[in-house]
């Protein structure tokens, strides 16, 4: 099996690499591009830790082959904030509300929530819990995460007001 060339835009930067067809986007980001913020928690599409934005939509990067992403625009946790060293509103809200403990699932939550709030800026508690159900956290009991999503809606509103 020969490696295939891939060119993708990641967090606004053009990146090239070569990989086997069987390599998932998650592994490609981590191993070839050294973007290790995308975490691999189950490798079978359930836990959501590996969630990235693919052409603007939140997807499991363990269920997309890297070759399928050739030419695509990817945003990972490293690219969610406004600039290096600064937190975006969702990240800020997670920090304020103790929405993370071990932090392993966190990148997937932050990416998923960012995508969700862009579409639905004022969700109810039930909508938030339903939206979050595609990501598994084993530490927080989701309490701080639900609070963080509420807080993020405020921070986003303040920023755009």
């Amino acid at each position: 099996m020969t490696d295939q060339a891939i060119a993708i835009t990641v967090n606004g930067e053009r990146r090239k690499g070569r990989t086997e067809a069987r390599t998932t986007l998650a592994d490609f980001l981590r191993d070839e591009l050294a973007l290790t913020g995308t975490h691999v928690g189950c490798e079978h599409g359930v836990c959501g830790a590996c969630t990235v934005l693919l052409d603007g939509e939140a997807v499991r990067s363990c269920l997309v082959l890297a070759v399928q992403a050739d030419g695509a625009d990817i945003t990972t946790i490293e690219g969610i904030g406004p600039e290096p060293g600064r937190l975006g509103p969702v990240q800020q809200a997670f920090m304020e509300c103790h929405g993370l403990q071990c932090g392993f699932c966190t990148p997937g939550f932050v990416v998923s929530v960012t995508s969700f709030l862009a579409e639905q800026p004022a969700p109810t508690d039930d909508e938030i819990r339903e939206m979050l159900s595609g990501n598994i956290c084993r530490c927080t009991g989701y309490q701080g995460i639900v609070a963080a999503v509420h807080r993020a809606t405020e921070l986003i509103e303040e920023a755009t007001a």
Partner: protein
Amino acid sequence: MKPGPFEYHAPHTVADVTALLAEHGDECKPLAGGQSLVPMLALRLTGFPHLVDLNRVDGLSGVERSNGTLVIGAITRQRVLERDPQIAEAVPLLARAAPLIGHFQIRNRGTVGGSLAHADPASELPAVALALGATFDVAGPNGTRSIAAADFFTGTWSTALEPDEIVTAVSFPVRGERTGSAIHEMARRHGDFAIAGAVANMSLDAAGRVSAAAISLFGVASTPVRATGAEAALVGAAPADINTLEIGRLALADQEPTDDIHATGPQRARIAAHVTGIVVARALEEAGR
């Protein structure tokens, strides 16, 4: 947990897809959204020397309405079903079913055609297609054909597709007058495959009696199944006279669901009957509005 090696093909035309499928036979598998196939590859529960990616094929994506039919391209993402106002208006059942499929991250990638062709007996879209009498447009190396939903699902993860055929589009009849529809399922957690679920599509005549009834069940057999006995009992009845509990029991009368770790067969039947009662009531309520 890494997939075994394979050769990856990304053709741009349906003809190239079917030619590749014909050439490689059993050693080849089409890859649509990959939300079921990729995990099975990663777990090495299955493996193919060749994968044919449908995502770059022209003309497989999109939604079009014409002549009382809504045609959905096979590679249309499931997320479109819940977002496209045209779908909510023409075939509301699709918009109601979509949120039950996995989670939004799955639906962003998973496709309508992929879910139907994967034919998981516990999944929602096959049951919707069956209840609504959808038609599958299929392409193979020797041309195209249509398969009715009633003939499409042949067993667990198996369909009437030949190995060198793919689904290119699915056509759903647009909702008629005085028609209501509903889908409901019982799953362990939000987004899980259903332990059992049911779909109902009910029409009333001008006098307010049931003129047409379609009920399909999922999770209770190796394919989605129509509850023909229950449907027959509904037709001609006035909604006020309908005992939905009894309809639920009737719907499961000739089903013998199997056991798994989440429910025994009899429990699955009990749950399906309960869920059936709910969807019949909801569909009738909507039809009478």
